[in-house]
């Protein structure tokens, strides 16, 4: 069931019924088309004896090629959800199916493998290794995938060329601008051809002009069929996505198309 709070418009996405069906079929393997399916996902933390329930049952289904923003104020559980979707953490309850595989019960090393193959992370603070060149940074996921050095270099160079950094691949992060660093991070996220590109506040450390530039990169990736999930707290950034999921108090408060979201929060940016 898609949780919808009172007073929030019923999501009017065309496939809502289908989405409900997928989420509702507890224990069943979702069909190939569904990249991410969570059913009743819960996560709680023991903070010195006090139990904090960060997620209280999240049902979310994301199709291949979707471009989804996950919104919510701080404390809404969006970071927890992102960590779970990114396989950096495991839930206390519920199911998480990634690409038809139940990953919510996997061991640490199996999750590492899944992260390597299926997830491309883009972080707010870029998280590039400062002492490695752009090329070496992009090579990292391939190193852990056990790909031979020659092919690694070729694929990393290719990925950097795709984000228009072919000329600067031997530069270190501190020799690159913020926007360039984030593009290196995007190249690194995509080099292993992951199922989902998972971005956590990708523009949080960038000025508005550079943010727009990064958003255009995401836009074009989505156009090419890349599934993108972006966590942000900025409504105008979220409005670049084609679907906006809002979390509040550990549950999904709304799940809308960009147009619906923009209309509801009164954003002019979504007019296009």
């Amino acid at each position: 069931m898609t949780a919808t709070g009172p007073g929030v418009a019923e999501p009017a996405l065309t496939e809502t019924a289908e989405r409900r069906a997928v989420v509702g079929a507890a224990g069943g393997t979702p069909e190939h088309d569904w990249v991410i399916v969570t059913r009743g996902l819960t996560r709680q933390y023991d903070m010195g004896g006090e139990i904090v329930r960060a997620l209280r049952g999240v049902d979310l289904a994301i199709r291949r090629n979707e471009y989804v923003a996950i919104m919510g104020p701080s404390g809404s559980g969006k970071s927890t959800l992102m960590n779970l979707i990114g396989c950096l953490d495991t839930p206390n309850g519920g199911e998480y199916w990634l690409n038809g595989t139940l990953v919510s019960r996997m061991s640490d090393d199996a999750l590492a493998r899944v992260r390597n193959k299926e997830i491309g992370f883009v972080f707010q603070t870029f998280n590039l290794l400062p002492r490695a060149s752009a090329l070496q940074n992009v090579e990292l996921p391939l190193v852990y995938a056990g790909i031979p050095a020659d092919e690694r270099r070729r694929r990393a160079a290719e990925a950097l060329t795709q984000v228009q950094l072919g000329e600067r691949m031997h530069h270190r992060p501190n020799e690159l601008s913020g926007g360039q660093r984030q593009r290196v991070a995007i190249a690194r996220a995509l080099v292993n051809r992951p199922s989902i590109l998972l971005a956590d506040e990708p523009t949080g450390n960038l000025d508005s002009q550079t943010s727009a530039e990064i958003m255009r990169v995401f836009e074009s990736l989505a156009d090419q069929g890349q599934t993108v999930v972006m966590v942000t707290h900025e409504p105008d950034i979220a409005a670049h996505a084609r679907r906006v999921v809002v979390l509040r108090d550990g549950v999904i408060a709304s799940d809308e198309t960009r147009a619906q979201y923009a209309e509801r929060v009164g954003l002019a940016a979504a007019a296009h």
Partner: protein
Amino acid sequence: MKTRDAIALALVQLRVQKLKSFFTLLGVMIGVMFLIAVVSIVEGMGRYVEEDFAGRLVGVNTFTLRRFNNVGPGGNRGFDAREARRRPVIRMTDVDAVRDALPAGLVPSITSETFKYASAPGARPRQVQAVATDANYFTIKKYNLEQGRAFTDQEVRSGTPVIVIGVEVAAHFFPGLNPLGRALRLGGIPFTVIGVVEKQGSVFSFSLDRLAIAPYTSPMGRLIRPAKDIGSLVVQAPNATALAEGIEAARGALRARRGLRAGEPDNFGLVTQDAAFGFIKELKGRLILFGTALPAISLVVGAMVIMNIMLVAVAERTREIGVRKALGARRGDILSQFLVEAATLSTLGAAIGIALGIGLAKLISAFTPLPAAVAPWSVAAAIVTGAGVGIAAGIYPASRAARLDPIAALRQE
């Protein structure tokens, strides 16, 4: 991640922090350096003793028949002074019995020696190594003559007072002169110089060129040993098997001649090179033990420094570890990354230590009489020790890094 990638990564870290890395591997470096130096010196001494000393002073594959079998600190165990005093001296008749019993191919030589003052006109008297022997002595010792000739069996039989001298003796008593035909006096008796042995060099700065060799039948025999005492019989065998046979033949012959009953101990000594150098081997073992115990302490300190630095590295690079985990590094990848880094660091320290240790050993052997020989096993052991120290020191920090929670690690500033 492949080991090659891990090593490449470790070398990058090393290059980035050159000074810190240098200080980190200082302990291992110093430890290995002294380890190599000590082992090289001890090994050099040992090899010197076994090859040069044994070959030149005693002779390879030789045994000596003598009154006593005490030689050096190793051979004195169970020495019974009263029993020793009752032992008869080695007489000519004993020697004849033994010589007759020896298998063919073995070369016996009646030999006794001591230090004596020699004199010649125009030179200060000087101590020489006086040897009373027969013609076989030159064969056993492999002495080649630089000038003149060795004495003959005929001269030995007749007891002619002829003498063969070492180059140092020749240079001292007859500087710039041809020593052949000149007289060298020992105990006031003149001996005619008939030959000069070519340069032999020295062992532990003890010169082997101060020789004065005369027939045992000449007055030299009486200068060295009391009458009727032959001193000792040195026997050289062509190989170790023949040596063992020769020893048994000599023992049997002498026991029979002296009428010893079965069960009665030998009242003579049969000393082999092995027995003579047993004590040196023991000494060598002890020197290596003590010589390596001290550097080992340095290695332990080195290991602790590496562990400390690796713990700091893990703390400093927590975020990097988080990123690597997010990108798909498994626990084993992180573990091996830090282990390889620690091992690379300390192996490099060991490599530098080996180079410095060899240098130190060469330096010592150049400026002191101590010889040095770098033992290949010590280099291999140093490399293995270096890598081992690194791995041992790296295990704890590396496993801490591997266990880090990726989310917490990524959050770290």
